């Protein structure tokens, strides 16, 4: 359902994220086009619709122009879909338009997601020329059998050359995305994948447990009897990756993310700090001044609404008061450094479920911070946090 709720042109600034410290504005741009849809993917993506690319970018431009001005952008993330499939000129145009509309901070991080099969020295050079300075490659695995199972179009060989090309073109930060725990993948295969990634000397690595999301081809296959990912196998692989990556100097800064010092993704840090971000494109989600909004997910609807001069909004949700506080903690829990406790800490520490997690050494609540000690139990903690009630007149209401 469409909820018309124009964003205030200049709302109050978000509460400063205390020592989490990221309160600078970000922007997300979604490029939905893919050569084909991976079986596990539940993002807003389209395959075989490349002929709509020009219309899409025109709509995207119009959407950017509609957004009330908001101050300069500290980070931009161009995600997908497969942004590397579209022409450098179109991507450069988007960056240019964002810069023109909002302004880019001097040290702005401009990230782009890319698939290895699209990557050439020319593409890399063109993107750098357009201002993109961080690239995140969807490598997923260095085992061709696993890549096949995941429905990927590139090979391990393709992935080995992309980091070097990106470096040569002058990218400031290079990240590799890896997926672990598909049913056919052995622990040794995963070890090989992580070690291969490390050998390419990226600045940043994301490791994601393969997840069966509702409505995906993978979920249909599992429902039909195909093997599902095994949580214990995934726990083993999670810990293996963590050991291998931290041993060579990567900092484990979020549940699924590792970075060399100074290469943490600024755009994502802002998200986990409950910061504001603008959002443009199909199915994109934004957050501004306590309001979360989302765009329509159907390509034709998105195009038509913008061509009619309307914002392609599918709905908004206003998060305020205690709920906003719980959301802040829920997001911050994903950080390995924890999150400022605020008013939630005492309530959590006196909750029976919170206490069970503390005594099981999954959670630590100290004076100032809430910290998940075992990242594999982040959701266990988050569930308790989201069920907490505020303290009323000195009593804990449950």
């Amino acid at each position, binding site marked *: 359902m469409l909820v018309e709720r124009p964003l205030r042109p200049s709302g109050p600034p978000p509460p400063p994220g205390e020592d989490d410290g990221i309160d600078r504005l970000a922007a*997300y741009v979604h490029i939905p086009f893919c050569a084909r849809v991976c079986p596990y993917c539940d993002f807003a993506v389209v395959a075989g619709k490349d002929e709509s690319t020009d219309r899409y970018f025109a709509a995207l431009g119009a959407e950017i122009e509609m957004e009330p001005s908001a101050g300069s952008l500290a980070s931009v*993330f161009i995600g997908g879909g497969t942004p590397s499939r579209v022409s450098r000129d179109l991507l450069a145009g988007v960056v240019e338009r964002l810069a023109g509309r909002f302004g880019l901070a001097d040290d702005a991080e401009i990230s782009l997601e890319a698939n290895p099969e699209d990557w050439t020295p020319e593409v890399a050079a063109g993107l750098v020329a357009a201002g993109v300075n961080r690239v995140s490659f969807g490598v997923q695995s260095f085992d061709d059998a696993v890549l096949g199972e995941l429905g990927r179009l590139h090979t391990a060989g393709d992935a080995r050359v992309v980091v070097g090309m990106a470096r040569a073109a002058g990218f400031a930060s290079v990240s590799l995305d890896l997926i672990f725990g598909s049913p056919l993948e052995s622990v040794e295969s995963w070890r090989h994948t992580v070690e291969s990634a490390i050998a390419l000397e990226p600045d940043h690595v994301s490791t994601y447990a393969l*997840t069966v999301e509702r409505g995906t081809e993978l979920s249909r296959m599992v429902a039909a009897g195909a093997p599902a990912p095994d949580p214990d196998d995934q*726990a083993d692989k999670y810990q293996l990756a963590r050991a291998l990556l931290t041993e060579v100097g990567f900092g484990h800064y979020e*549940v699924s993310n590792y970075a060399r010092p100074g290469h943490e993704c600024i755009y994502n840090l802002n998200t986990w700090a409950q910061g504001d971000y603008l959002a443009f494109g199909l199915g994109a989600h934004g957050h501004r001044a306590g309001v979360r909004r989302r765009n329509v997910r159907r390509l034709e609807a998105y195009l038509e609404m913008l061509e009619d001069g309307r914002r392609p909004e599918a709905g908004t949700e206003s998060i305020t008061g205690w709920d906003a506080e719980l959301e802040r903690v829920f997001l911050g829990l994903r950080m390995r450094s924890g999150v400022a406790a605020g008013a939630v800490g005492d309530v959590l520490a006196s909750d029976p479920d919170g206490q069970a997690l503390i005594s099981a050494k*999954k959670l630590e609540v100290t004076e100032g911070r809430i910290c998940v000690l075992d990242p594999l139990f*982040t959701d266990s903690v988050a*569930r308790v946090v989201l*069920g907490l009630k505020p303290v009323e007149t000195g009593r804990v209401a449950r």
Partner: protein
Amino acid sequence: MTSRIRNFSIIAHIDHGKSTLADRLLERTGAITGRDMKEQLLDSMDLERERGITIKAQAVRIPYRALDGAIYELNLIDTPGHVDFSYEVARSLDAVEGALLVVDATQGVEAQTLANTYLAIEAGLEIVPIINKIDLPAAEPERVAAEVASIIGGDPDEVLQISAKTGAGIDELLEAIVHRLPAPEGDADDPLRALIFDSYFDSYRGVICTIRVKDGTLGKGDAVRFMASGLLEHADEVGVLTPLAVPVAALGPGESGYLITGVKDIDLVRVGDTVTREDRPAAEALPGYLEPKPMVFSGLFPVEGDDFERLRDALEKLRLNDAALSYEPETSAALGFGFRCGFLGLLHMEIVRERLEREYDLELVSTAPSVAYLATTVTGEVVEVRSPQDLPAANQLAGIEEPYVKVMMLAPSEYVGTVMELAQERRGLVGELNYLSPERVEIDYEIPLAEIVFDFFDQLKSRTRGYASLDYEPVGYRASELSKVDILLNGQPVDAFSTIIHKDKAYSYGTAMTNRLRELIPRQLFDIPIQAAIGSRVIARETVKAKRKDVTAKCYGGDISRKRKLLERQKEGKKRMKMVGSVEVPNDAFINALKIDRD
């Protein structure tokens, strides 16, 4: 005018077409119009209609103009068709002079029909044997007629052949009711004696009694006394059920109908009591009924502790219409406050549970059903044990006795071996065979009640491809080698799962329960040992391994609202868990763990 009255019941096995026949009689005599007719009208409770069984006896008056030109008043007292409710059958037989014995032409006589037929013959009733469903291709009316005739000792030619579905033979049946069944006896000038053969509670009218007048006359406005309870009331309304309630000025001898006095306390109006008139009281009451005795016991606990009072109220209300239901408060360490309830059998238990959940919107957890054991302590004291928790400690216990029932099974002769094997697996004693015909055998065994209340009937049916049937009656208590098996979660006994069981079966029970629970209890933050133990001796053990991973891989800008809501929903889902010590046990686990296949 008792000569124009015929009171009768229908004896039939489930599915042999009793309710359809009753509907057809009502329709054929014009007692109700087709438009008013809900299918199987007599079964008024939703549950009855859904399960296709009759739970409560009901009475309907059917006016019928016979071929001799006279109008007869046919009173049909409907009876339940399940073994759990056989006491209600016996009750309704006291209110009639005759019975229609309905047998499915494709199936033949079933054990329960046989048992009820014997009851009817003993009560001196005239039996009209009927073969139903003669329209079906598989019908064997000649064979079945011979079988029926051999049971009631008549001529196969006197067995009526009908199809309640198509209406064939219904006219002949109505004439047979008029001519073959005796009219009731009784004198209108004698002091009133009316038998209460059923009662139910209506929230507007209070207690409504279904009565059969034996002697005298009961009129509206009469001062009436309930002879057993001594209660004195006014007859606010008397009437007949057609099947809709229709008030009449008076009910005379031989007539059945209802009586409303405005009394609200159902305990003062007992089924089996005799109603007489205060102005001219009868000297002696009619012989009453034995109170139905609960055979199976189970604890019922509200999932939400706050619902205890609502459960109490609901049980009180249900009992108003179900004298066979008993309950007393019970406390469980695992499940909190609830009630130990007594039922006639497993079907009765399921029905009560379903009504509590459906009609009173309660979410319930029930414990393993148990029978009532008799434990003798070392000091010679005998205690009735309705719950494993009540069993005296091993060092206080001198012996245990358990209730036995005589089980009568009817099966085609090729299944004799199968039936005997099942009976022996269930510790059956004294097999006895009685050939009703070359094709059908009556097989009698004495079996501990505990062995038959759970799934014996299902097993009997599945092993004989549905052809066997059974009935049973209590035959007293016998000493047995029984043990109490406890189930421990994380070292703590869970009283809800304890059971008293024969020592030869303790190990397989323990293994099955620990296995089942391992599958039903979700992984948690720590390893959870599940043990089955007799006293301090562990006989089976399983472990629910600690959960190792509970994290969403991706949580980025586009996921936040969705992930938050998903986690909130999962948190809500945890409300369907009971904390047993430090272990979270899903409510379903209490129900599903007890559904153990025995083989």
